[in-house]
């Protein structure tokens, strides 16, 4: 095993948490049961790494096998790094009928045509998602396996999720994907986050949606609190409406975990008390960023508890309605 291969394996094992290591190696299927038994998982990790390196060297495992292990690990734990959502546009006639082998061949052929030194691995996961791992090189260097790009695509849907992509590789990946899926173009969906499933659910509207209804009773009956007869609310309709409107805007039940919403403002400054900044012709550029461990949950709570006024402003509700978390706001609208 070459030096770079060893380094790759070392880095990978360092990355995988110790508790998961045994299951990952079991799934890898390149080490026999006897080999797995010979490894002592109670030793400190660096000792185990040495043994593992020696074992793999004996077996003559190559970069190809190691990238398989990496892919297994990433598929099990996709929530590392930022995932970005993209949408495919202008489907051609045979786009809905693309199936796996055709897609695989087309994608590999296209990408290797564009760059000669690129390493591609395609795998179909149990939940019908196609995972693609691409390691980029260029015409003179070998592919860099330390910084791969992962792409997730569900066939017959117009959505693609990518992580680990640089701006240099973006146009090449775009072109290969567009040609392989038989669409016209790919555009940025302006949705990014750390949790892959959340991004996917938000773009494909797979969270529990609530639709406007003239009779809000269903939501009200969920918790019939026995009211003390001495306590009376003067303005009860407000409380009932709020929960309904919050759920209409953001959804019910468990919400997809989004970390940030960014609003880039390119609007003119408007505040009558500040004469120096108001009345300028150029827009006042500012960025408003909301961040939280679970942003949609926090926004829904803000609305349902009265901190944010109802009806919910379209600036906030378009996070779920349009499925994006990066907005550019100009004077004419979003």
């Amino acid at each position, binding site marked *: 095993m070459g030096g770079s291969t060893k380094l790759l394996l070392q880095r990978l094992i360092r990355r995988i948490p110790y508790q998961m290591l045994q299951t990952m190696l079991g799934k890898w299927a390149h080490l026999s049961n006897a080999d797995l038994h010979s490894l002592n998982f109670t030793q400190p990790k660096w000792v185990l790494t040495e043994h593992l390196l020696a074992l793999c060297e004996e077996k003559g495992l190559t970069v190809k096998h190691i990238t398989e292990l990496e892919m297994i690990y990433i598929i099990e734990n996709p929530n590392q790094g930022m995932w970005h959502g993209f949408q495919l546009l202008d489907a051609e006639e045979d786009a809905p009928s693309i199936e796996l082998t055709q897609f695989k061949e087309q994608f590999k052929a296209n990408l290797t045509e564009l760059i000669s030194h690129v390493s591609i691995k395609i795998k179909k996961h149990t939940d019908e998602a196609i995972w693609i791992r691409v390691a980029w090189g260029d015409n003179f260097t070998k592919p860099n396996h330390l910084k791969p790009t992962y792409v997730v695509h569900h066939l017959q849907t117009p959505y693609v999720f990518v992580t680990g992509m640089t701006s240099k590789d973006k146009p090449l990946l775009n072109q290969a994907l567009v040609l392989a899926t038989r669409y016209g173009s790919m555009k940025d969906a302006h949705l990014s986050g750390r949790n892959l499933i959340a991004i996917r659910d938000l773009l494909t509207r797979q969270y529990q949606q609530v639709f406007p209804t003239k009779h809000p009773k269903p939501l009200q009956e969920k918790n019939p609190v026995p009211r003390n007869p001495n*306590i009376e609310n*003067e303005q009860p309709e407000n409380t009932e409406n709020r929960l309904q409107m919050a759920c209409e805007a953001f959804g019910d039940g468990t919400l997809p975990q989004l970390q940030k919403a960014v609003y880039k403002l390119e609007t003119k400054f408007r505040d009558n008390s500040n004469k120096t900044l108001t009345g300028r012709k150029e827009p006042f550029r500012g960025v408003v960023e909301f961040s939280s461990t679970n942003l949609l949950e926090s926004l829904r709570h803000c609305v349902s*508890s*009265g901190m944010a006024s109802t009806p919910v402003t379209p600036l906030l509700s378009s996070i779920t309605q349009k499925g994006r978390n990066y907005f550019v706001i100009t004077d004419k609208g979003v």
Partner: protein
Amino acid sequence: MSLLKPFSKLPGLNTANILLVENEEQFQQKLADTVVLQEKTVNVNVRLARSLPLPMENEESRPRIDLVVFIIHLTSELSFQSAETSLKYLDPGYFQGKVCFLVTSARNVSVPPERLVSVRKLAASLHCPLLCAEDQTTEGVTTAAHRLLAILKVAAGLVPMATGLYLSTLTRCTVPSDIDQQNFE
């Protein structure tokens, strides 16, 4: 304008009515439950509202309100502004011992100190008491309820030899003249 008037209705026998006004509608529910549980000798009715003016539909069934409490969360500017706008809908007769300000999160480090100063100035200009309450623990809620009940009973005329106006001259909020220069270095 539909002002809330203090003496336009007859009082009930051994009854005291308190109105809790809070923009966020969070603390008032807990406080209401505790107040009703704590008081055994007097019949206490609690009315909850988000802001004034109160809806006209309830005008008939609403009893005479003896004490109006404005709950202001210092963590939110909106809370203070909502309380300020609600003040306009109170008849001036209320400001003689029948209004009280209750403030939460006064010890919170992230709260700008200017906000507490403005609330103090507002309470002092209206000659009303300003209470600080801790709304996150049950002891805090119980203590706040206890204090409110003490003021309520006087305001409802249930304590002999004491009236709301008399009590308010003792408990009203005062603002030292150098409050704007105060710093806590």
